[in-house]
């Protein structure tokens, strides 16, 4: 009988370091399992965004290793990028393209078959409520609409690992719910989602596991109950988070 090797983790970070004027990420170790919804929390300047920008190849680390679904992201960035998608808190899209054209452009960059990509694009535009605006140029879109276009672009190539930096900032309740529904659907379909957020209620409700970063290092990780144990404090995620950060500062 053949023994099956366990599937690789979605993300495995070891000894990651990055310094600007001061260390931003300081020997970070982090593992995110395949198929989970992982929320990364931390105070401002904790190193969350820097970490994620190194994972997606926007920044080069000073030291450490990054493995994405078993692919060494530093040695073979193109292969790692093929299975990842990144959405920043400031959605950057092209004002002079329509959402439909934007998705076609992204599909071209990721080399997705046109027929498959078009079908996915139509589905995504439908789920995100963008069908009425699919052929309008993005220049007049609100921040929420731009964020949804960026999200559709990130999902059109069906990435196995979706990394989002504060994706819900500035969205109205309806748009936020649409985005959350799409992300849940992706996790149900087997993708992994890593999301930073300052909206702790979202992390509490959506995440399978939560990681807390402070001073460029992971100070706690686990489910909400596990975090409560580590913090030695019961209550909401907000109470737990503040206790963990305060403990670390002390």
């Amino acid at each position, binding site marked *: 009988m053949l023994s099956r090797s366990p599937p690789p983790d979605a993300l495995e970070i070891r000894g990651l370091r990055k310094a600007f004027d001061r260390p931003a990420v300081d020997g970070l170790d982090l593992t995110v399992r395949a198929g989970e919804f992982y929320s990364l929390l931390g105070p401002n300047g904790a190193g969350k965004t820097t970490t994620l920008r190194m994972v*997606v*190849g*926007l920044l*080069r680390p000073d030291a450490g290793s990054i493995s994405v679904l078993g692919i060494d992201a530093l040695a073979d960035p*193109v*292969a*790692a*990028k*093929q299975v*990842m*998608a*990144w959405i*920043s808190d400031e959605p*950057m*899209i*092209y*004002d*002079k*393209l*329509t959402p*439909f*054209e934007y*998705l*076609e*452009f*992204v*599909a*071209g*960059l*990721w*080399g997705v*078959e*046109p*027929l498959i*990509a*078009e079908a996915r*694009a139509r589905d995504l535009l439908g789920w995100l409520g963008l069908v009425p*605006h*699919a*052929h*309008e*140029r*993005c*220049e*007049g*879109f*609100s921040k929420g609409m731009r964020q949804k276009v960026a999200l559709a*672009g990130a999902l059109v190539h069906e990435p196995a690992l979706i990394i989002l930096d504060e994706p819900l900032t500035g969205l109205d309740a309806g748009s936020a719910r649409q985005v959350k529904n799409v992300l849940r659907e992706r996790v149900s379909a087997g993708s992994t989602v890593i999301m930073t957020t300052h909206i702790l209620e979202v992390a509490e409700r959506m995440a399978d596991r939560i990681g807390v970063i402070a001073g460029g290092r992971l100070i706690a990780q686990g489910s909400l109950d596990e975090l409560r144990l580590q913090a030695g404090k019961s209550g909401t995620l907000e109470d737990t988070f503040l206790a963990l950060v305060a403990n670390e500062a002390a």
Partner: protein
Amino acid sequence: MSETATLAWFARHEARLAWRDWVAMIAGRRRRQRTAAVLVIVFLVGMHLLALAMVGRFADLGPDPDKVTLVVITGSLLLSWFLMMSQAMESVTRAFYARADLDLILSSPIEARKVFAVRIAATALSVTAMAMVLAAPFINVLAIRGGPHWLDAYGVVFAMGVSAAAVAVAATIGLFRLIGPKRTRLIAQIVAAVIGAAFVIGLQIVAILSYGTLSRLAVLESDDVVALAPDVGSVAWWPARAVLGDPLALAIVVAAGLAALLAVILIFSARFGEHVLHAAGISQGPARQRAKPHGFRRRSPASALRRKEWTLLRRDPWLVSQTLMQVLYLVPPALLLWRSFSNGTGALFLLVPVLVMAAGQLAGGLAWLAISGEDAPDLVITAPVPASLIQRAKIEAVLGVIAIAFVPFVVALAFVSIFAAAVCACGVLIAAASATAIQLWFRAQAKRSHFRRRQTSSRIATFAEAFASIGWAATAGLLAAGTSLAAIPGVMAILVLALARLISPSRRSAERMA
């Protein structure tokens, strides 16, 4: 704080912003004020020397000039006035559409009409101050050599600045009412650029066609123009007489300028606020619908990138107009070359350097848009595509446009001389590649809408691009003429490129990473 005090405070705020913009323009956005001061002093000394060479010989002109003198001075004033009006129109359009502080201003408990009255006045003063700085060396040189009566010219510059701003405000608001907020943005910016260029280029073209020279003075001093001009007693010469030190003319000119500005402030400041609100709201309106959306097509990443660049450029007429404007200034020298050497095929050979120069300039602008003006850098960098392929695709996008623009000229040239056409094609390619390479070495992420600021973001890149283009143009021109002297500017262009590469930030950062 009383309302008057608040308005005074707002005026100071506007003055401070204008000053900082000015310092940034002179010294770059990251430089310190001390650097700005040094650069201003160097600039002023250089300008005084230039002024001495240009106008020193006119210092002896007295208060009782002949008609030719009046025509020349008035023509020069008119030229400057159009340039001021162009700058003012640009400032007014920015005030309409740049929303950085409008939310704050419009939500403050001050009447919008008064706030915008201050803003219009500030725009006028900013335009006037810039004109004063540029005119000061010429006026000073004339005053030192010819006497203090020339200092009256400062008053004329002031009157021209405020009247240019007044007309710019009225014209922009007129456009706004006529064609609406969406189109005004584009049209006003194009009109501003064309007004600035058209008068200079128009005079040069007339001078070339009529007198075979690039000098604008040749037109103004010509018998035809002098004969057409009004008599010396006409009010049309008051500005010129004011420049020459006639106190009554000066008082009338300054009063007229101020009256124009005051009238515009009184009539338009309330509407200015209204229009600013409309302009602020245009981005919320529905965007244009595509006629026939096609389905997704099979494309390689490189093809997707090239197509994206071309689509973005095609859909932004303002960018197209700004890019082509650089080429517009090459029309007069091309015309001069054509006219001066129109015996046989010589003129066609002389078009070679003009085309090469134009290719370098055009490629520089396009390369900036494709490389530094990438609006979604995160998306492109996180795509599973090697960085070298992204770079190559963008270079191909730039060279593709250059090819489309210049192939017709090269083909036309080939009918006269295959050799000249081959030299021209190589020159166009090398000049475009050099300009693109410089943009790659000096890339700095920026918004596409900041296209016009690209020349102040890196002066080294701007000068390197210009000198390399001039070098390649001279090389191609001399080579087409069949002289081995072509090697000299060629070597100079290579040295410019080598020096630019040596001091480029991309090389320094690559060394740091190593």
